[in-house]
Every structure is written in structure tokens, then in C-alpha cells.
């Protein structure tokens, strides 16, 4: 496939992901509202919020890093998309593999942090104590989440003898029983639990904690910056879900499958969030060090013998 076609597919894919991210977010809130007996927001609300945000008349800036923070964040989101094979079409050169040939699972693991780190820097420049508090919590929780996740990723990589996400997806084709969920249940369980932290919903949403530290890192961001961050957030949510989908739930062979699977994955975390109150940071860290870590270690150990 030539590079222009590839680029065109990629841009199209990104637009799908972005809008699906918004829609998915709205749907989740709708579901939450319906569970509470409310009518809830209209489905169009995220887009309206985006338009409203990027059209504020006054914008402030605390300095150059404050400025660049959302750029980092959005780049992180887009980059994650670019390096992820989205829809499996049977050929590594297919239309929806984006630029995933440039890297593999390790790249995704580390690039995941790109946006977070940039955001942390940007929020820091504002000098708001809550932003810094949110970031310290976020980083601590991130560390705790990543340990079981890494173990599970390693386990999957060992299982298929590759770090290439494309190959992992390919290996899971051919029926539901080929999914990692069933072929490597410990790794899958570790991911399913650790995923809750990675997606950052309650009970692990201490980073944002709206009533306590005024949504943490983003507390100083307004208008256009906020719009960028909302877009990045939508993208990242989908991409995280797609990552787990690719690794555990057999990937997707069509956009429809992708949408359904990512929705269900994301819904899992929202579902848990509906039930549990927010954890303190040390609680959440110790929680990830218990069951998910144990599962992760098990997932790796079974391949050592």
C-alpha cells in the first residue's frame, strides 16, 4: 500500500477513534444516569462541550510548559493510535494497521507514558498544588498498575514468542477459544484487574478526584487546552481498550467488532466504578500489589517451567 493511501486510512481511522471515544464517553454517562434513574446527558454532549471549550474568548497561559502539556497529551493519544494495529485484516500491510510496523508492544507500553509525563510537566508549570498532588498520586498508582500489567504482557509475549501486537492478534484468530482470555487465563485476569487502574475510573480515579483536589492535573486548564485534553482523553480511552482487546480478547476483524469489544472493555471499568467508592492512594497501590500482582507473577511463572 502506498504511503498516501496509508496516511488517508490512518486519518480516517483516527477520526473514527476520536468520535467513537466521545460517543463511548457519552454512552457510559448515559448508562450511569439510567442506572441512577436519571435521563442523563444527550449523546451529543461531548461534541458540544468540545466546541464550547475551544471557543472561550479569554485564554490564559502560565508559561511555555503549560502550553505544551496538552500537546504532549494529545500527541500521546494520537501516537498510541498510530503505533497500534486497529483492525485485523489478515495482512500486516492492511489498511488499519497504521504505523504499527515501526514498533511493538514495548513501544506501546512506554509510549503510553508520553502523554502522562508531558501532562505532568504542563500541569506543574501552573504552580497549582492540586495539580502536583494529582500527579504524584497518578504516578504512584501508575507504577502499581504497570507492574501486574507488565507481567501479564510479558506472559503473553512469552506465550506467542513475540512482542508484535499484530502477531499476537493473528495468533488469536480462529475462534473464541483461541483468545488469550482462555489460553492464558492468569495473564488475562491480571490484565482485566489491572486495566481498572489503567483506565482510571472509580475506585482508582484519585488522580482527578473532582471534589477533593479539583480534578487534579487539569485544574488550571481551560478553554482550548481543555478541548485538546478532552480529545486526547477520548482517544486514549479507546486506545487503552483497543490495546487490551488486541492482547486478550482476540483483536478485531472489523470496526464493528472493535467498537463492540472496546465498549465492553470500557464498560467493565465503568461498571466497577459504579459500585466502588474511591480508594486512597496507598489503598489502591497495595491493592494492585495483592491480587493482580499475584496473578501476573503466576502468569509468568507457569511459563518458566
Amino acid at each position, binding site marked *: 500500500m502506498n504511503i498516501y493511501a496509508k496516511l488517508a486510512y490512518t486519518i480516517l481511522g483516527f477520526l473514527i477513534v476520536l468520535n467513537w471515544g466521545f460517543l463511548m464517553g457519552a454512552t457510559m454517562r448515559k448508562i450511569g444516569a439510567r442506572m441512577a434513574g436519571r435521563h442523563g446527558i444527550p449523546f451529543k454532549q461531548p461534541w458540544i462541550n468540545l466546541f464550547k471549550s475551544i471557543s472561550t474568548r479569554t485564554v490564559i497561559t502560565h508559561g511555555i510548559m503549560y502550553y505544551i502539556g496538552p500537546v504532549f497529551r494529545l500527541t500521546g493519544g494520537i501516537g498510541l493510535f498510530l503505533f497500534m494495529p486497529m483492525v485485523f485484516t489478515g495482512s500486516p500491510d492492511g489498511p488499519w494497521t497504521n504505523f504499527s510496523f515501526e514498533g511493538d508492544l514495548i513501544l506501546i507500553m512506554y509510549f503510553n507514558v508520553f502523554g502522562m509525563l508531558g501532562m505532568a510537566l504542563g500541569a506543574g508549570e501552573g504552580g497549582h498544588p492540586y495539580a502536583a498532588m494529582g500527579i504524584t498520586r497518578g504516578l504512584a498508582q501508575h507504577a502499581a498498575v504497570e*507492574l501486574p500489567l507488565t507481567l501479564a504482557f510479558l506472559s503473553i509475549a512469552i506465550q506467542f514468542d513475540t512482542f508484535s501486537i499484530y502477531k499476537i492478534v493473528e495468533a488469536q484468530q480462529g475462534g473464541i477459544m483461541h483468545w488469550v482470555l482462555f489460553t492464558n487465563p492468569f495473564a488475562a485476569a491480571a490484565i482485566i484487574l489491572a486495566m481498572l487502574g489503567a483506565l482510571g475510573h472509580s475506585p482508582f480515579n484519585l488522580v482527578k478526584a473532582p471534589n477533593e483536589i479539583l480534578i487534579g492535573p487539569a485544574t488550571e486548564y481551560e478553554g*482550548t487546552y481543555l478541548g485538546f485534553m478532552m480529545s486526547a482523553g477520548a482517544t486514549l480511552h479507546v486506545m487503552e481498550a483497543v490495546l487490551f482487546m488486541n492482547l486478550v480478547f482476540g483483536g478485531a476483524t472489523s470496526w464493528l467488532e472493535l467498537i463492540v469489544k472496546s465498549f465492553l472493555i470500557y464498560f467493565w471499568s465503568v461498571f466497577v466504578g459504579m459500585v466502588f467508592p474511591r480508594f486512597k492512594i496507598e489503598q489502591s497501590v*497495595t491493592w494492585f500489589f495483592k491480587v493482580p500482582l499475584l496473578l501476573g507473577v503466576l502468569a509468568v511463572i507457569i511459563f518458566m517451567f
Partner: protein
Amino acid sequence: MVTPIFIVATALGAGFAIGVLNKFGKNFTGGLVLAAITFMTFISYQWFSAFQFGDQTPEYVYTAGFMPPLSINLLMGHYEAFVTLLINFAGLLGGIYMFNSLKNRGSNAQVVYLIMLMGLNVMVMTRDIFNLFVFMEVSSIAIAGLILLEKGTRSMGAGFKYILATSIISGFLLIGIIFAYYFTGTLNLDGMIDANLSGIKGGAVAVFMIMIAIILELKPFPANGWGLDLYEGSNAGFSAVVSAASATASFFVLSKVMDIAGPEWYYYISLIGAVTFVGSNLLGIKQENTRRMLGYSSIGQLGLLMLILGFRDILGDQTPYIVFGILISHYMAKAGLFWISGIVKSKGLKGWAVIRKKPFFLFLMGTFIFALIGFPPFPSFFAKWTLVMELVKTGNMAWVVAILFGSMMEAVYLFRWFGYAIKGENEHLEDFKIEIHKIVPVWMVAIGLYVMGYFTAQFTEVGAEINFIPLAFVGLLLALDFLPVFVKNTIAIAGMLAYSYFIYPDLEGDTLRLIFEGIFMLGGILALIAGYAYKGTRAGFYPVAILMYAGLTGIIEAKTTLEFFYGWELMTAGSYFLIIRGKRSMPHGLSYMLFSIGGAYALLAGLGIAHVGQDSFAMDIINNIQYIPYWAYGLLIAGFLTKTAAVGLHIWLPGAHGEAESDVSPMVSAILLKAGVFGVVLALIGMGAENNQYTELAYALGWLGAITAFVGNLMAIFQEDAKRLLAYSSIGQLGYIVFGLAMMTHLGWLAGFSYVINHFLYKAVLFLTIGAVVMRVGTHNMYEMGGLIKRMPLAFVAVMIGIIALSGVPPLSGFTGKWLFYNAVLEKGWYLQGALFSFSGILAFMYLWRLIHTVFLGQLKDNHRNVKEISIWFLIPIYTLIAGLMVYAAKPEWILQPLGNMIAQFFPDGQLIWDGGTAISKYGQWSGSLIGMTIGATFMTVLIWLMLSTRKAHKVKQFDITYSGERPERPETTHVAYNAFEGLYKAMWVATIPLVETFWDRVTNILHDTAGFTRRLYSGNGQAYMLHIVFFILITYLVIIGG
């Protein structure tokens, strides 16, 4: 040629002459004494040079013209000439030093001094055992008299104890002599040897009596309280003479008399020597009184000499060389130290800080201490090396352990003392006066040490001039120390550039060494450029910095193990001085030194084992160790790991790096630590070059690396001090490197090496930047900084790039290492270690964010409003290094491909496949430049979009933040910095319990308690000391003769 009898005659004649001529005044008689000693020295020298440079044969002097046994005969041989030269030279210098003391005590004292020297000379030369006894008594009486040079009850008590002890000893000696005579019918030593005294029935007792008396003269542990009192109580100048001349003479007497005892005694002499060496050095660590501490050290050194003497059969031809090295170092260094102690006049160790008021004294003191411990280029270094090599070769490992342990203890107290001198509080201390006649001897022995070092080195491979060129450069810089920084810095840089150019052809083609040499040299030059930022003369910085680089380049160029060890010790010495220059770095400098010395001794033992069964000392012997290779590699790696600060051996690092000066931290962190890595690489090449059969060792090393990475990174999170944070981070990064190397696969090594280069680049950037920031803001504490991005944007950018590279986030170069690592882990199957490694990497985000946030972001503090951007001299090296990072990020194949080729020599399997800029491993692929371009393009697109849409943004100031309707009061209370990761600490405090520190604390306490308990033996009661002597004799009798 003047016959040696004139030594005696001169002394006696001068003594009588003084009695006659003392009406001409004490200065005259003093001059006469000095003239006499000079003449005696001349005679010894004449003989010595005749032996050394001519072909003189040993000559007997027969007194009264009769042949033995009817008369007494003196022998002037090579060794005798040398030892009398030493004695007379010490006597001469001592005479100059004590000129006034002797004069004040009158001409009698001068005569007694002469007589003492004469006695010592005759003790050395005589071949008649009764004559020996007589002159031992003569010199004892003289010494006992001269102790009174120092006034006060302390010296009186010491003198009385001395005379009591020597009387007891001489009683035994006399009994021994008469029995020996009874059994052999001769008093002549040669006659006794011929008669095979110890073989005669009952003769063993006679031999025992003689031997034990002479051994007791050498003050063996623990029957040596009187000797310690002598060192402590007498005049400092006189202690020096006793330590140098009298001890040397006694030692020679022992070596002489040993011949009649026969080989069965050798073992016991060694045993007594070892016990003395270890025991007195152990007790030395508890000393607070300088002179007594030096006394312990003197006695310890004599014990070491005894030990060597006992091994003279085994050591064979090497014995004179080893004895010479140890003896001459001890002789000069201890005399020098005693003399300095007489000038400085401070009893307690802490008072020695006053020495800094005359900085060249620090140089002298440093010279003596380093010579005593056995650092290059001093003779003791070579002697100790040879000793250990020979002992290990002959399988005497236990003795090596004793020697190294004793030396370690000696290093503990000497360096603690030196630390007080360099860094202690000295404002309240009174300055001391220097008299010219007192300082001359000190300088002479100091210079003598260097000369002797050069002389000694000529007998080894290090003797080549090339190894002394860096040292000469150090000397040059030392001489130019008065010049301003700018000039010296330029000279240093030019020197290093020239040396790099000079050395490059040697290393061309050897990628491994080239990488490390590049890190050492280029890194060194870059770090030196930052030195331009300093004002004034920066006294003492350049010699030690260059000393360190000399050592570093020495270990790279080393062709033999000795050269390697030589470079290693030079580097240790240089870096010690660099580290201790920091404001509060005294304890850290000490612990650095002790760990380094411990590591060096492990290395020494390891190299010794490696040498077993091999003919050469070439470096490649470690590739093929034949004798207990597990131990050898273990010791070598343990030695190297002290420098890479593996967990357990890391406690010196945070303080040492954290408290060092701004441009020293990068030197000791980014550059120096790589020396340890280089060592580990060499050891691992040795282990794995042929076939990797040491999997357990590598496995343990792998876990150690992973745990080090974890501990280092975790501890870094909870630091408040920016430089300590970076220091802990270094521990963690070195853990990665060790882990990677320990995998012993192609990919593992590639990852390790990519970390070596990366860590050099970004840690140098970070340390230089943070150091420069610290220079500007005047504090290390991160919570006292903040918001500095507004004041120093260039520094911020440097740190940001540094932390992105360190954290391993693509697209910068840190990701290279991570990617290689995961592939290597998967290939090797070390999953759990890999996960721990990965977790450490994630922990790194936290401290990195904290570093940049609390220093550069957040609230600008009031007192930093006007700080300037960091110095241009720091920015130049920083941005040069950043350019390196960027090149690495953009074109990783430029670095990784040559690295891969180099590693393929050792590990040909499992190489990366390069497809243009894409690296393809068994498990995945990664194209650094493409990823960089993709991310860059995305980033720029988003950035431009945001810039366009917020072009009218209003620039606000630091308190324009939403603060619940309130306004912040102060930047300090609004900046989240202190104890930032409290939540994580609550969850993970278990992992931060300082087990290692506790362990080493316990070890220290046990040693101190042992020393403190044991030294109560020396109750200060002369009678008790006599009892010790008697018990010592009884116990040795039971052991040796066997009841």
C-alpha cells in the same frame, strides 16, 4: 672505602669529643653530632652503593684481629649496608628534627642519641650473639634515656615501662644466649648455624629463648603495651626515629637470628606477625589519640614484616623486594607522620583539621597515608601486590585474608584521621608554627617516597615510562596550583586532549576499550569545561581530577593485571580527593574510600587467584582462570561492584555523589562508575568468552542487578536532595547495566552497553545541570527551589530532555535500552527479574517528575527571582551531551551496529538484524528514526494547531491560580514538593527499610566493640605489661615447643 668499624668509632669518638668540647656550647656539640651522623651515613651509603652499583662482596670486620669465635666479628653485606643506611639516615633526619630538643636537654642527650644510633648500627652488623645482646641493651638504655626528651609524667611512665619490659626481655635473651653457648660452644651466629643449634637436644629451648626475646623486641600483639606507650609518650621526633630506625634494626636482627632457629620457626613467626598485624590494626580503629594510633600502625606494619619474613622460603627471591617495599614505605611514611604530629601538636584526631591552615602539610600527610595503605605509586603498593600474588600462588589464602583484613582496618583509622584533617572544623583551632629544621626532614621523606616508588616500579611492568606520564602531569598541575582556574583548566583540558590523541592509535579497533576510553576522556573533558565557571584558584582540584583520569585511562590501557590494578588504585585515590572536596562529604568520602579499598582488596585477591597456574600477568589471564575460578570471578566481580554500587555495597554512593561539587558529581557519577562497569565487563568476558559455565554466578549477578535497580530507583523517589536523588538514580541505572551484562547474551550485552552510553550522556547532563542550578540557588533541597523555568529555561530544557531520555519514553534514546532489555529478558527467560527491572523503570518516572517539577516547575521562590541562567561554561558541555543524546535518538543504528559487532566477538548468537534503521529481533521490531519522525510530526502538528488557537492567550503570573477563591500566601506554602510521594511511601515503606545500612552499622559496631574491649588489655600498668610478656612467652612456648 671506609671500614664499617668506623661507624662505631665515629659515634664513640664524637661522644667522647662532646664530653671534652662541650664548653664550646651546645650548638657546636649539636653540629658535631650531626656531622658524626652524616659521616656514619656516608659510610653506610658508600658501602651500599658499592653493593648496589658495583660488585662488592660482603666483608667481615674482625675486631682485635682475631678470628671468631675468639673475637667479635661484624659483617657488612648488601642488606646490612642498606639497613645501616636507613638507620643512619633516619638518625640524621631525626637529629636535624630534634636539634633543639636535644640541645635543650644538654650535651648528654646528644651523646646518648649518638650512642643509640651506634647501638642500632652494631645490632645490625654484628655476627656475635652476645655482642648483639650488649648492643641491644645499649640502645635500649639509650632509648629509655631519650624518652625523657619529652617532659612530663606521661613520658616518664612510658620510659619506665619501656625499661622494665626490655629488662625482662633481655633477661630471657641472656639465658637463651648462655644456653646456646653451652650447647654449641660458640657465640658466633655463623658458628651456631653451622652447629645446627635447634637440632641439638635441648637446643630448641635456647633457640626459643633467643627467638622469643628478639620477637618481643618487635612488640608483638598483645605483649606490646610498653611499645605503644613509647610511641605515644616520647618526643614526636624521637618516636619517628624509634619507629624508623629502631624498629628497622630489630626487624633486621630477627631476620639475622632466624637462621639459627631454622625453618620450623618460620610458620610461627608468620603467625605472630599476622596476629600482630590484624590485632593492632583492629585496635587502632578505636584510637582517638594520634600518636598512639600511629604507634598501633607502626606495630602493625612490623607484624606484616614479620609475616613476610616467615614466608621467606616460600616467597624466595621476591622476599627482599617485598620487604623493601613495605619497609621503606613504613620507614618513610611513619617517620614523616610522627614528625608532622610533632609539628601540629594535636593529640586528638579532630584537632588535625588545623593542618588545613598550611595546605602543603595536607599534601605531605596525604602522601604518607596513601603510602602506608599501599596506594600507587608508592613502594608498598608494588610490595603488597607481589606479596599477595605470591601467597595466593602458593595457596596461602588464609594469610592473604589476614593481610587484607589488617590493611583494611589500617585504612579505616588512617582515612578517618585524614578525613578529619581535610574536612574537620578548624576555625576555633590555633594555628601551629613551623620551624625550618623540622619541616626539612618531612619533605625529604615525602620526596623519598615518590623516588622510591619510581625506583620500585622499575622492577615491575608498570615501570614503563608511559604509566608515569599521567602522574608527571599530575605533579605539574600540583606545582602550578597557585595559578587561576582558567589557566589550569586549559592546561588540564589540553593535556587530556593531547593524551587522548596520543592514546587513540593504541585502542583503534578495540571497540570495547574505545567506548570506555571515550566515556572517560570525552566525558572528562566536557566535565572539565564546566570548571571554567569557577573563580579563584580552586586549589587542589586539578591534580586530583587528573589523577582520577590517569587511573581511569590506566585501567583501559592496562596490558597486565598489575597495570590494571595500578590504574584502579590511582583512580580510587583521585576520586576520593574529588569526592571529599564537597562541603559535607567527609563521612561519605570515608565510606567511599573504605568500600573502594575493600573492593580493591577483593580485586587483588581475585587477580591473585587468576594468576595461579599462569606464567604471565597479562590481562587475558582472567579469561582462563584455572584455580577455583568461581571464587576468582566472584571476588573480581565483588570488587568491581563496589564501584558500580550494587545493592549492599552502595551506601557510600548517595552521599559521595550528592555532596560533591557541581562539576565533580558528573565526573564521579557519569564517568567514574563506568570504571566498575568496565571491570564487570572484563570479568564477564573472562567468564563467558569460551563457554559460559558460571551460570549460577551470572544468575546471582542478574538478581543483584535487578534488586539494585529497584532499590536505587525506589530510594530516589523519597529523596529531598536533588543531587542525592540523582545519585540514587545512578545506583538504579547501574543496576540495569549489571543486570543486562549478567544475562550473558548478545541482546543483554547490547542493552547493557546501550545503557552504559546512555547513562553517561544523560546522567552527565542531569548532574551538570542540577549542579549548575545548585550553584546558582545555593541549596540542594528541592523543596527550596521551584519555578526556575522562568529564570533558567535552557537548564530546564536540558533537564527535560535528560529525564525523557532517562525514563525510556520514546522517541529519545532511553527507549533503546528498554526495548533491547525486554527482548533480552524474553530470550533469556529471566521473566521475574525482568518484571522487577520494568517496575524499577516505572518508579523512575516518579523521581524524574519530582526532579523537574520541584526544581523547575511550580512556584518560583522569592529569593530566586533574580537568579541568572546557569553558567555558559556548564551549558556548553550540557548541550554537547544533549546533541549526543539526540543523535543517538535519531540514528540509533549508528551506535548500536558497531556495538553489536563488538559484542558479536563474545556472543555471536542472537544478533539484531538491521533493515535500514529498523532493528528486528526474534520477537519484534523497532525503528528508532521512523518512530522519532512520526512522533515529531504529530507533535508539531498539534503544537502548531494549539499555538494558532491560543495566540491571544494572556500571560499570567505565579499566584494567578484558582485557589478556592483565596489567594496563595507564599510560594513556599503553595509548592507541592516536600514529601511529595507520601501515599506511595505509606504503601511501600517496607521496601525502604535501610537493611544494608543497618548491616554495615552492625559490622562497624562489632569491630569497634571488639577493639574497645580488647584494648582494655593495655591497662597502663607497667607490671601488667611485664605479665603480658611472660604470658606471651609461656603461650608461645606451649604452642611452639609443645609443653
